[in-house]
């Protein structure tokens, strides 16, 4: 390479001059470096978002391209807010969100607290516990339908082994009462490690000297737990809840594979309802309006939550 004329000229030029000739200004480099990323996001995220907003005011149906598109103002939004199916799907989402967060926080924190006792081999077991979280929800969810089979499924067998109930007497995915819990179980199994890892980081960030000082002040272990451990871990825990909350609000793949929204529509959560409206009933305008409502809801809730999180951090 060094044989090229340009390189010989470059090496002979004093450094300061060379930088002016060959190198671009920092400002230009900054834009060259950031530009492509911003462009890609504008093209694949923001442009579609604006398009969705536009579609949400129309009666467009994507499977009938030749039909004249009419602007119908806010009628889609009015219809959604008055649609009982949508409210049912929001309820299903809320049920799923509340119980998955409840169990994941409870079990995740407990596990982290136990792992932080630093027993021998805790690293190895932490890695094993974390595995389910990294796997494909669709593929894993699909396999859980096998575990949930009434007669032959391992889950039903284990339940009947410990409780004595006939394994074919209950159908986790097919019964209206049990189906919402079947998805809570799988999601908790998958994502408890996520909360656990973050709590563990929080616990490990507490310096020993705080406990030592509390010990000298003769604070009881219980009191240390509630006045030191919990407040110090809380910002971490809230962060974990934020991540899980956003993800589970969008929940799609796991539930599609497990119940497909059924039986009936008891587990038809917001994303699944949206998919049906958009890609099965082809009500593109209507579903665009629903998509916008969902996005605004997530964004709004997340912003409020982040403000609360920052307050906790400042304390």
């Amino acid at each position, binding site marked *: 390479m060094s044989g090229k004329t340009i390189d010989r000229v470059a090496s002979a030029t004093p450094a300061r001059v060379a*930088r002016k000739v060959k*190198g671009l200004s*920092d400002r230009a*480099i*900054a834009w060259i*470096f*950031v530009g492509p*990323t*911003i462009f*890609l*996001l504008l093209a*694949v*995220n*923001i442009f*579609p*978002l604006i*398009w969705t907003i536009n579609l949400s005011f129309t009666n467009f149906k*994507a499977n009938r391209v030749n039909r004249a598109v009419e602007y119908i103002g806010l009628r889609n939004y009015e219809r959604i807010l008055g649609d009982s199916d949508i409210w049912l799907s929001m309820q299903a989402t809320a049920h799923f969100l509340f119980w998955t967060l409840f169990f994941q926080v409870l*079990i995740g924190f407990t*596990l982290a607290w*136990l792992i932080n*006792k*630093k*027993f*021998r081999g805790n690293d190895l*077991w932490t890695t*094993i*516990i*974390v*595995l389910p979280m*990294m*796997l*494909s*929800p*669709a*593929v894993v969810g*699909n*396999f859980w339908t*096998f*575990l949930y*089979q009434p007669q*032959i499924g*391992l889950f039903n067998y284990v339940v009947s082994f410990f409780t004595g109930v006939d394994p074919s007497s209950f159908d986790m995915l097919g019964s209206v009462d049990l189906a919402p819990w079947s998805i809570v179980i799988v999601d908790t*199994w998958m994502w408890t490690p996520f909360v656990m*890892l973050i709590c563990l980081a929080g616990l490990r960030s507490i310096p020993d000297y705080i*406990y030592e000082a509390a010990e000298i002040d003769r604070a009881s272990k219980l009191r240390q737990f509630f006045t030191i451990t919990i407040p110090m871990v809380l910002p*971490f825990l809230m962060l974990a809840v934020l*991540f899980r909350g*956003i993800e589970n609000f*969008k929940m799609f*793949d796991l539930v599609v594979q497990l119940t497909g929204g059924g039986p009936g529509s008891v587990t038809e959560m*917001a*994303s699944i309802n*949206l998919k049906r409206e*958009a*890609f099965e009933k082809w009500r593109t305008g209507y579903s665009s309006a629903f*998509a916008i409502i969902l*996005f605004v809801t*997530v964004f709004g809730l*997340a912003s409020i939550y982040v403000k609360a999180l920052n307050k906790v951090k400042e304390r």
Partner: protein
Amino acid sequence: MSYSITEPSSRQKWVAGTLVITYALITMVPLLWIMMTSFKTPPDSISYPPKVMYQPSLEGYVNLFTTRTRVSPEKLASLPPPANFAEEIVRNRDMVIAGPSKFGGRFLNSVIIGFGSTFLSIFLGTLAAYAFSRFKIPLADDLLFFILSTRMMPPIAVAIPIFLMYRKLGLNDTHLGMILLYTAVNISLAVWLLKGFIDEIPREYEEAALIDGYTRFQAFYKVVLPQAATGIASTAIFCLIFAWNEYAFAVLLTSGTAQTAPPFIPTIIGVGGLDWPAIAAGATLFLLPVMIFTVMLRKHLLRGITFGAVRK
């Protein structure tokens, strides 16, 4: 040994260890069951009570990679002896191998789209992360938040116009379309994680290089990149795992040519119902690489899953 009041007693450690190990073993059962089922015969897989001890068989894997047709016993008897173990297994079920299944192609699609989008996200993400880390960019915080916020949209919400847009551009069900889409989703993760890693490299290294007459590009290429190599590698694995696991876009925007494995595996159907050993075999082959990567990544795991918010 010195005594510390904050060190848990050995009894506490023993109790904690027992509880955690119990949880870990329970959590492993579904994964072990997938792997065990993949080595069962179809009748063994649906027997009651569920079989823990069984004669291992490769029938699931053979069924995963082949399509088969049923033949009459007379026809079967007239055939030459089976050429390999796969044919032997299939003939025991009164069938012959008709050809390869679609699984290989779907798996290859996952590999192409996964690696393609990972490469692109890392390439663009490293450049952007370096710029955010080192230069004064107007409204940098807002831009960074904008990059992150694209992650909050439900995939289905973006999928409607992307579906329409791709239909116009002819990108529906193409590798390129999926690579671009996954890159757009992954780039927020890449930028945020890589910015954290690059922030940790002391500026003095580059400044020394600049004084020695390097251009910015050279300083970036010869000083920063080698220093950030570990960070880039672990970010790449996170991007790869995301693209590998993604389902919502894949199921909506691909149907044939560019379909990845996650939407395909659940549709594997055998003769007379779902072929669970074949599904389990597909799942095993699909999940195993991710498990290995997870073990490799364990030191950076926390950072990756929280977009760099928690660094340990």
